[in-house]
Structure formats: structure tokens, C-alpha cells
């Protein structure tokens, strides 16, 4: 990689970053090896379907380690390093995904991890070809004077986390699944009718209403979040029947399903396969 540019020789960079320094040979392991190892570990954890917190932590660390090392060679200051590092990360991931699409594995977890780790090794190797190891553009961030800002940043992040938590809780409270009545496809003259809700509700009863009668199929049904009740309903052929969810000793229909298998209506819905 070229190490001399018009900009680099005369201008430390608009961001005011520290000028690059020649630190001699820091040793392959100390400079690049650990970054590659971190990338490999992160990829391995990801491919092995490890817990999310573990894969997220390692992947984030690996990405930062690799990108930070690569963007050192831009020598245009912190803003440029952050911009190009973040932007090209997205660009490279996007184009890698495009390439993966034309490979047999497609965009699966394994192909992503293999592709990403190979890419990391390639760019690190390319960065290591230069004799120079420029100083990190982000070095000023780790000075002692940044500590107060960092502490405030943690406080700020904590407040954001609280805001998010209360929003999630509020969303959960106000998006409770309503009471619903649903039916599976009719098979062998029967359909399984399910009563479900996201909160404690009941008692209800399920009635089957035909042209001649009203039959109670189930009584004292109570449902709650995660607990639904299924009732097997006989569906007579060539007839229109209605399944109603009502409260005991009430005629007010809460929910209603219709099964119409009259001959004029054509075939019944015995098959559930998609026609597309």
C-alpha cells in the first residue's frame, strides 16, 4: 500500500489527528496476529451458534480491531478514520453479501462468517504489507482528559437504556393480543377451533349453530397469555354452520367463524396447500 500522498506529507489531516509515527517493527503478533485471531474466534463463535451476548461481543470487538488497524493508513484524522471505517465496513459487507448470493451457500450464517473472516484476514494482511505502522487515529480518545466525557457518556447511555426499557414495557402493555377465534383447515369432517388471547379472559363457551340447532361444544373456557384452548368441531358436509364464542348465559356473539360447504359453493377447503 502506498504510504506517501500529497496530503500525508504536508497535512496531518483536517481532523487534527496525531501525525503518523514510525514505531519500528512491533511484531506481527502484537500488531496483526491478535486481530486475526480475534476475528477467527468471533467467526467460530458465530458459526457455532453461540449465545448472542458472546457472539455480539466478540464480533464487535473483532470488527473494531480490524477496522481500526486498516484505517490507520488513511492518515487523515479521526473524523476521516471514523467515516471511512464505518462507511467502508457497510460497503464491504454489502458487496460481500452480493458475492455470497452467487455462491452455493447463499447468505447463510456459515457463509457469512467464512466470508467475513477471510475478508478480515485479507485486509489485515494488506495493511501489514507496509513497513510503517501509523499511530491510531483514535488515540486521543483514550487520553485521561476524555475520561469525564466517557463517564457522562455512560450516564447518557444509561438514560437511553431506561428510555428504551420503559418504551418496550409500555409497548408490551398496550399491544396485548386480543381474544380471537380461529379454525384450522377441515380434515375428515372436523376442524380444530382455537380460542386464544394475550390476557386472562373467560369463562366462555363455544356453540355450534346449524340451520336447525344450537349445540354447545365446550363450556367454561378460560384463556390467558400462552394458554389457548382448542375445540374439535364437526363440520357437516353440504351445510352452512357457524361456530360462535359467547359468554355463558348470553346471546351476544363475541367471535364467530363460518363453515360453508354447501354444494353450490364448490369444493370445501379440505386442502391447505398454497396455489402459488
Amino acid at each position, binding site marked *: 500500500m502506498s504510504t506517501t500522498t500529497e496530503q500525508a506529507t504536508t497535512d496531518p489531516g483536517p481532523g487534527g489527528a496525531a501525525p503518523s509515527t514510525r514505531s519500528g517493527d512491533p511484531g506481527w503478533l502484537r500488531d496483526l496476529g491478535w486481530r486475526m485471531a480475534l476475528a477467527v474466534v468471533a467467526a467460530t463463535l458465530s458459526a457455532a*451458534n453461540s449465545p448472542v451476548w458472546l457472539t*455480539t461481543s466478540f464480533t464487535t470487538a473483532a470488527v473494531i480491531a480490524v477496522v481500526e488497524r486498516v484505517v490507520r493508513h488513511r492518515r487523515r484524522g479521526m473524523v476521516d478514520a471514523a467515516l471511512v471505517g*464505518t462507511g467502508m465496513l457497510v460497503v464491504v459487507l454489502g*458487496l460481500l453479501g452480493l458475492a455470497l*448470493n452467487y455462491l452455493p451457500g447463499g447468505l447463510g450464517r456459515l457463509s457469512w462468517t467464512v466470508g467475513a473472516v477471510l475478508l478480515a484476514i485479507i485486509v489485515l494482511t494488506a495493511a501489514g504489507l507496509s513497513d510503517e505502522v501509523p499511530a491510531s487515529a483514535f488515540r486521543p480518545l483514550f487520553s485521561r482528559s476524555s475520561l469525564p466525557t466517557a463517564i457522562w457518556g455512560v450516564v*447518557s447511555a444509561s438514560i437511553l437504556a431506561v*428510555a*428504551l426499557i420503559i418504551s418496550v414495557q409500555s409497548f408490551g402493555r398496550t399491544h396485548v393480543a386480543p381474544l380471537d*377465534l380461529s379454525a384450522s383447515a377441515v380434515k375428515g369432517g372436523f376442524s380444530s377451533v382455537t380460542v386464544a388471547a394475550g390476557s386472562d379472559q373467560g369463562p366462555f363457551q363455544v356453540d355450534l349453530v346449524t340451520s336447525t340447532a344450537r349445540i354447545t361444544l365446550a363450556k367454561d373456557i378460560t384463556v390467558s397469555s400462552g394458554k389457548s384452548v382448542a375445540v374439535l368441531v364437526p363440520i357437516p358436509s353440504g351445510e352452512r354452520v357457524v361456530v360462535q364464542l359467547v359468554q355463558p348465559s348470553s346471546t351476544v356473539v363475541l367471535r364467530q367463524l363460518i363453515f360453508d360447504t354447501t354444494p353450490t359453493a364448490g369444493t370445501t377447503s379440505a386442502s391447505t396447500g*398454497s396455489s402459488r
Partner: protein
Amino acid sequence: MLTELGERREGDQVDAAVAPARSGLKRVAGLSASLVGTQAITSILGLAFWTLATRTFTATDVGVAGAAVAMMMLLSSLGSLGLGTLLIARLPVTAQGDRRVLVRTSLLAAGSTTGVLAIAIPMVAVHVFGAENLRPLVANPLTALAFAAGTAIMAIVMVLDQAVLTIGIGVLQFERNVLASVIKIGALAALNAAGVNGGMTIFVAWAVGSLVSLPLISLRTRGGWHLQTDRRLANPQALKGLGRMAASHHALNITLQAALQILPIMVTALLSARENAFFNSAILVTGFVFALPYAIAISLFASASGSEREVLSRIRLTLPFSLAVSVLANIAMFPLAGFILSVFGRSYANEGVDILRALVLAGIPFVIKDHFIALRRVQGRTTEVVWLFGGFLVLELAAAAVGAELGGTLGLTLAWVGVLAVEAIALSVPLYRSWRRYRHEVRADGDALATAAAPDALLPDSLLPNSLLPNSLLPDTLLPNSLLPNSLLPDTLLPDSLLPETSLTEKLLFSAYSDRRDTEPEVIEVGPAKAGRATRRKTISATTVLLRRLIGPANLAGPAMVLMSLGVLLMAVAANAGRAGSIAGWTRAAWIGGLVLIFLPACFRIVMRATSHVERMILAVAMPMILQFSRLVLNPTQFAFHDELIHANTLRQIDETSRLFTENPLLPVSGYYPGLEVATDAIHRLTGLSAFVSSVVTLMLARVIISLAIIAIVGLVTGSRRAGAVGAVVYVLNPQQLFFNSQYSYQTLALPLAILAVYLFAVRRRRSRSALVLPILATAMVTFTHHLTAILLVGAFAVWLLVDLVVARHRPAAIEDAGAAPSTRAGRRREQVRSSDRGGLLWMSISGAAISLVGALNPGSPVRTYLESIIFSSTSDVTSLTEGKQTKALFSDAAGSGPARWEQGLLLTAVLLGGLAMVIVLRFLWTHRRSPRSLLLIVGLLALLYPVIPGGHLTRATAEVGDRASGFVFIGLAAVLGWWLWRSTWRMRSLLAVVAAAVVMFLGNIILGAGPTAGQLPGPYEISADARSIDADNLAAAAWLATGVPADSVVYGDRTSGLLAAADGGQYTVLHVSTNIDASRLLLDPQYTDKDVALIRRAKLDYLIVDIRLSTGLPHQEYYIESGEFGANDRTGPVPAAALNKFASVPGVQRIYDNGSLVIYDVRGLR
């Protein structure tokens, strides 16, 4: 000292009584005992009053009264304007004959100001912000007037009590308080006996006590009547020029008192008056618990005689002692809380016990807080305390609001105490450091403890650490200064800020005795004209000290970020209230307040010239990031907008098939530009995070890129990264920044990458074969992400090339002189841009066009027809407009709802300000006419397109074009306004005006881009209204589709149900845009005909989703399903219910799902 002024000494008995200062802890103990004793008497009377109230009135009445009293104390504190403090300082140096008129003028000013506040604020709270629980305060004109009068009297009493301190009758204030307390108890009993009830009755009794006690003052001071020379009722000239003197101390007073005064009001407004009854009672009890530590803190300060060393030497014992007292109080209160509260009644004991236990915990942080205040006061650093405690107050109230939202009154209390604890921890650090420094000094100087007799301490009551006293337990005046030892009162050293500006001699005398920190040699040396400047320098110095000690060296990025985060928190609270169904005034105010809290600190700090570069950069990135985060408080777990659901569907398809370019029925063209989804899939697969969380991360990355890219590009154009940061603020004014450009949509990522591509090209390494690799890669990713952005990017490179050619032809020879190497960094940067390689531009244009062409030729890509349809519809609408046919109502959506009047005003002001910015753009272009540079001209021309944004809203089709254009146009505006704002020299007043204009433009543009505030917030279901249409019912239906029917079944539904069926339910939704089949008559035509059957067969429809709520109103987004739907042209009312129910009676159709709002029909029998 004041004695040296002579004139005050005449007849002043107090000074004669000044006892020789005792030293050490004995003096602290003596003062503490005196304070506790007098505090106890007035507190017991206060307790008796409230006990009578709780025993004779309902809990709701007591709650209303508690809120009214709290609001009275708050407003009277505000409305007293610090005049009490001022009088303490001013009266001693005022001629005896003029003192009474000065007092009367002050009383009138305080009373009238407070009266106005007391009328206006409850009205605004109830009628504007919807604080219904405060309605009893303004239930009718009589109660409103009673409240205003009572509050005004309280302000008068406050000022008067402080004024009498200077006349030497130290016990007078105590006498008046006792009299007032006794009378109000009697008045309450009398009113109750007369059968008068209601919360305001309790308040009136309180006010009567205060009113009746006033003549006592007049009577006891009658001896001075004959001395007065000015017998006018009031003389406004007497107060002239004194306003600023007391501002600092008044601000401190308000800051310290506000929390305990506002909390009862918050409980009433956010929860209920009944809840406040319990809360108020608990606060009453805590007054006793806090009294001793409080008295110790006051005494510590008072006895220190202005010596920092004395305070520090005593803190060693007073701090642990006060802490021990507080801990013991906590231990004792835990079992006794219920018993103590039973004084007020059984319900108080049951409901208030946990609140009291929690409140008592506040005593421990209060000990730290008040020791800190005592220390800072003797150090003369009150300005610091005001700023710091102002920030703390905001934190406390925000936490309390969140706590109330989550856990009611107990939650509010715990959250408040929690923040107090954090504050105490933070304050203990400087306390400890000061003490450590003191120890070092003592070691170094054996004589340190033998401090020279310092002037007596400053102790106007406004300066006392009274933050921990519940106002309702206090006597009418906030602090019983009359009960303080006389030695602490008039014979005090006044702060120079309280002295009249005209009396420089006096000022110098005082300065000579004041704390060394407050006395700068130049103040003495300069004349009167320069004194102001010197004082200002001193103020800045105090602020700097605050920053350096507590925040960091001249870097306010951290606190600003905390404020911005609090803005998000406020928005979260507003969103939660909206979700719960409340779109009341306060909800909208909180939402807007949150937005302002995010924007204002960053904007202000970034445009300030004195701000450090690092801070500016941090804020320029943090502000857009935090704004992006605010999107999550609206929809924290779910894609909610139309475009988001389209891309969520592509993301789902990639996740399920591991392949790209699958058909997305919601918008086929989007499936062929999956760059956004691929980046998200990468994060999702590599980290294991859910698809939604991965999308959030992707959007955050996009926001980082665009913020940095704007800074970098504007920096390139203007030659200043600082201007770049200002440009980043300007870019946030973009109408689409908050909603559209923060959505999970392909343009959201493509736009940042496009700016990145331009930047990479502009700063590429010249004469390098690999120079164009990065910009071409970025361009390729843009093409892979969004068709239109890619076309515009390639077009931008082509225009750049053309402009460069034209500019080169007209560029003066001198500019072309290669030998004239610029000497500055900015000059070099400009030269770098100026000498941009035309070959490179040609390469970028050709390669970009080629990549775009490849993307367009992707088999099956409908991009050409898609873009043609947009152009056609836009052209058609513009033509209609030019022919006088309005195709879109202004300030109203299709359902007839739109922004309120004030929102319209805000919007129009923002547009007007944008129009004014065009003048600056023209000036920008004019300024650079002699040395034109291509990139500079391009951004100038881009900025000139601003009128397209508001103008686009005149027609339906162009509204979207205008909205989408804003992301591009504001790049130009960011560069131009960044240049303008940075190159101009601003006075603070002008700068504030610019910041205010920016805030107005920010809020107005949000309304322009996202509609009225009520629509931005979550709330009850609305028809075809994007996020407001997504509720538990249609989410449940989509979730059932995902498991109840086979994947990729062909379904049809309204706009929202269809989107959710595909994105969440995994089905294939029929839309005209993807199938060329308009099946809308299935849902919108009340008649069931053969055409319905034909459509079902043609579309091979499996299931029909019907949201029966469609019949309840018109759609907000023009249509129920999609553009050109059945009956759209002549629609005057909602879709008939018959249309939505017609399939219930069609033979062969099964109704297989019903949740009360949505039903799903199986229509395969009709095929």
C-alpha cells in the same frame, strides 16, 4: 463591613446585639438547637393544620390542597423575584426615609407578578397541557381568583418577612409565622364547621392565616412611620437597576426549593389528587426527620464566619453526625411509619407508609448535598451551585416523571430518591477533595486552624441551604430567619452582586472583605465603566471552574449528551402516554420538549465559537444519533411504517431463502436493491441478534456515516471542519430527518453512502492507480441499495465534471497559477478540491452509470417502469395544479385531520426561514463568483432547490418527491449555512437569535415532514395512518397468518393488513404494483358480483383479510389499500360496512379467523 457605611447603623439594634463569635462545634451545636427548636414549633403548628385537614376532608380534597399549596409556594418563590433577598441587601444602604416606599414597591411588584403567574400557570396547565387533576384550582372564576390572591399574599409575606430582618426586630418573623399558623388552623376549623368543603377550602384557610398576620408587621413597625420622607404608595424608580443583583441568589433559591415544591404538583397532575394526599402527608412527616441534619448544615455555614477552613474542619464531625442521625431516622421510621401516618387517618397509614419510608431515605443524600452547599457558599461559588443544582433538578424531575409512569407515587419517590443518591455520590467527591486539600494545607501550615477573624458570614435567608425542608411544613416564609441568632443577620457581608452598581465605593469596601475568590484586583483598579466587564469575567471564571472541577476541561459534550438523553426519556414518557390513549396537551408538550432538549444543547454548543473542537465534533455526531434513537421509543420492537414493512419483508425473504432478488410483492423494485437488507443480514447472521435489532444497528451505522460525511463534505467545501459541524446541525433541520430518513428504508442507507462516495472521491490520493477503488466501491454499494440515489449520485458526478469544465474556462489565470501554493491548511484543502481530476470524474460517471445499468438490467427488475410511474404521476399532478385544480388540501390529510393552528404557524415560520436562507445561498454563490470551485458551486445550486421541499407539498405525488429530495437538498444547505454561520462574527444575543430560529425551523420542519405532533405520537388505531394503524389487533391477525395458514399463500387486505400479512405473516400479498391486478373491489364494493369471483380467480387468491374498522372513517393516507382503488375518485365517506361484511354470506367462503376487529376469509372455494 456595613458599619463602615455609616448610614445603616443608625437605630440598628441588632448589630449591638452581636455577640462575640464563639468558635468550633459549640457554636454549631448552639445554632442547631435554636433552629431545631423554632423549626419544631412552626412545624408542629403546620402538622396540626394538616392533621385537622386530613381528619375533616377527603383524601382527594387534601391532595388538591397539597398541590395548591405546593404550587402556591413555587409560584410565590418565582414571583417574589428575589426581592426579599434584595431588600436585605438594599435596605441597610437606603436612606431611612425611603425605606418604606422601597419595601412597598417591592411588595407590590412581588404580589402583582405572582398574581399574574398564579392566574396564568394553572390555566395553562389545565387547558393547554390537560392536567385535569389540577382543574379544582381553576374550576370557576372564584377559585381561580382565590388561588391567585392567596399566592400573591404568600409572595408578599415572603418578601416582607425578609425585609423585617433588617429592622432589627428579629423575633417578628417568628411571631408572624406563629400567628399565621394559629389563624389558619382556626380558619380551617371555622370553614369546616360552616359546611364549606373541597380542597380549595383548605387552601383558603391557609391564605386567610397569611393575610390576617400581615397587620402584625405593620403594627410592630409603626415606630418608623414618622421617619418616612417619601409617602407615595410605590415608587418604581426605587427598583430600577436592581433586577440583576438578586438574580443569581434568587436562581439558587428556586433551584434548591423547586424539587419539593414541584413533586406534589407532579403527583397530582400525573397521578391523582388522592395520591398527592398521601404523598403530601409523607412529606410533612419527613420535615421532622430532616430538621436536625438541616439545622446542622445551616449552622455549619453560619458559624464558619465565611471561612472555608472552618467549614472543612467541622465537616469532619458534622457530616458523620448528620449521616448517623439520618440513618437512625430511617431505621426508626421503618417500623413507625404506619403509626405516625395514622395521625392523619387509617387510609393515610395504609397508602402512605411505603412512600414515607422511601421519602425518608432522601435525608441521607440531603446531608451530603447541604454540606456541599455550605462549603460552596463560603467559597463564594454560588454560580456553580446554581448551574449544577439546576441540572440536578432537571434530572430529579425527569426521574420522578419516569418513576410515576412506571410505579405510581412510590415509583416517583424511589426514582427521585435514587437520583438524589447519585447526586450525593457525585457531590461527595468534591467534598472529599476539599477536605483532603484542607488536611494537606493544615499539615503544611501549622497555623492553619488559627484562622484570622473573618468578616461575619453572609446569611440572607435566600442563601441558606433549605433544599431539604418540605414547604408545607415551613412557616409562611421559607426560612425562619428571624429565629436565627442576631449575629448572623444584618451584620453580614453582602455579596458585591447585591450592591448597587452606582456605589462603586461601597462595592470596593465589600470586596475588600469578601472572599478572596470574589475579589479580583482589576475590579478595584478599573473605573465604574469597566466594572461590569470585570464582573462578567468573574462569572465566566466561576463557570469555567465548575466545568473543570465537575465536568472536565472546557468540554460540555458529556452533560449535553445527558441532556439530550433526557430528551429521549421525555419523548419516551410522552410516547407511553400516547400508547395509553392520552394525546393530551402535556403529552404533546413533553414530546416537543424532548425534541428541543435533544436539539438545543447540541445546536447551541456547536455554533458557539468558544466551544472546543472535540466537543463540537462529539455533539455533531451525537445529536443525530440520539435523534435516531428517539425513533425507538415510538416503535421499540416492531417495524411500523409502510416502507419499513416493505423492507422488513425483503429481509425476511433473505433470511428464509438465503438468496437475493426474490420477488417482494409489496414493492417489487425494492427486492432488486437489497443493500440495506444485506448489511442487516450480515449483522444478524454474524452476531445472532434478531432481525429487528440488527436493523436498528444498521440504521445507527447509517446515521453515523451521514453525520460524519456531512461534517467532512462541508469541511471540504468551506475549508473548516468546524463549519462542517455547524453544517451537521443544519442538516438535522431536514424535514425528513426525524421520521422518513430514520426509517428502515433503502434511501436511509443509500444517501449516507452516496455522500461517502463523493467524499472518498474528493479526498482520494491523486496520481494513484488505486485512487478510485474506494469511491467506486461505495458507488457500487449505493447502486446495490437504492436506484434513485444511485442515479442522482452518478448524475452528481456528471454535473461536477461539466461544472468543472465550465469553471475552468472562466477561472482567472491567477487562480490557475500552479506556483501559488496556498500556505494555510484551509487553502491547501481548497486547492485540493479545486484541482480535482476531470479524468477521475469521468471515470466515476462512466463506472457509476455502468453499475446502475447492470442493476437495472437485473432479470426481472421493474426499476424502469417504477421510476416512469413516479415521473408520470408527479407530472400529472403538477399539470393539474398549474391548471388550477388543487389535488391536495393544505394542512389537511385525506381524513380531514391536520396540524393545529400553532403547528401551522410553526410550519410556515420554518418555511419562511428556509426561504430567507435562499438569500444566504445567493450571497454564498455571489461571494465565490470570482474564485468559483466546482464542488462549491454544486452545493450552492443544490441548496437553491430548497423551495422544492415545501413546494412539493402542493400536490399529492410531488409531496413524496419533495420529501425525498430534502435529504439531498439539505446537503447543500448544510454547506452554505455552515459556511455562513461559521464565517460570521456573532454577538451572544445574535447567536441566541440564530439558535432560536434553528429550533423553530427544526420543529416546523418536523411538522412539514411528519405531520402534526398528535400524529407523530403513538395512539389509538387510525385508518391507513402508518404506525398509528398498527395495533394489537392487526398484529395478532398477522401473527396468526404466520402459523395458521401455509407460508406464501396469496392474500389480500387493506394497506396495513396487507403489509403485515407479508412482512410478519410470511404471505404473498396481492397489490396492483406487483401483480397489475386491482382487487380493491373485494373490500370496497358493497355488492358481491361476478367481478369479485373473477378477481379471486385471476389473482389466485387464498385468503381475504378484512379489517371491519375501515368503515369507521376515511383513510389518512389517501386510500384504504393502494392508489387508484375502487371508488377513490368520488369518495365522500367511509367504506360501507356492507362491503366489509359481504363475504360472510357468500356460499363456499369460510370465515376462519375473527378477533373482533379483523376477520379472515378462506376464499379458495370460489376459485
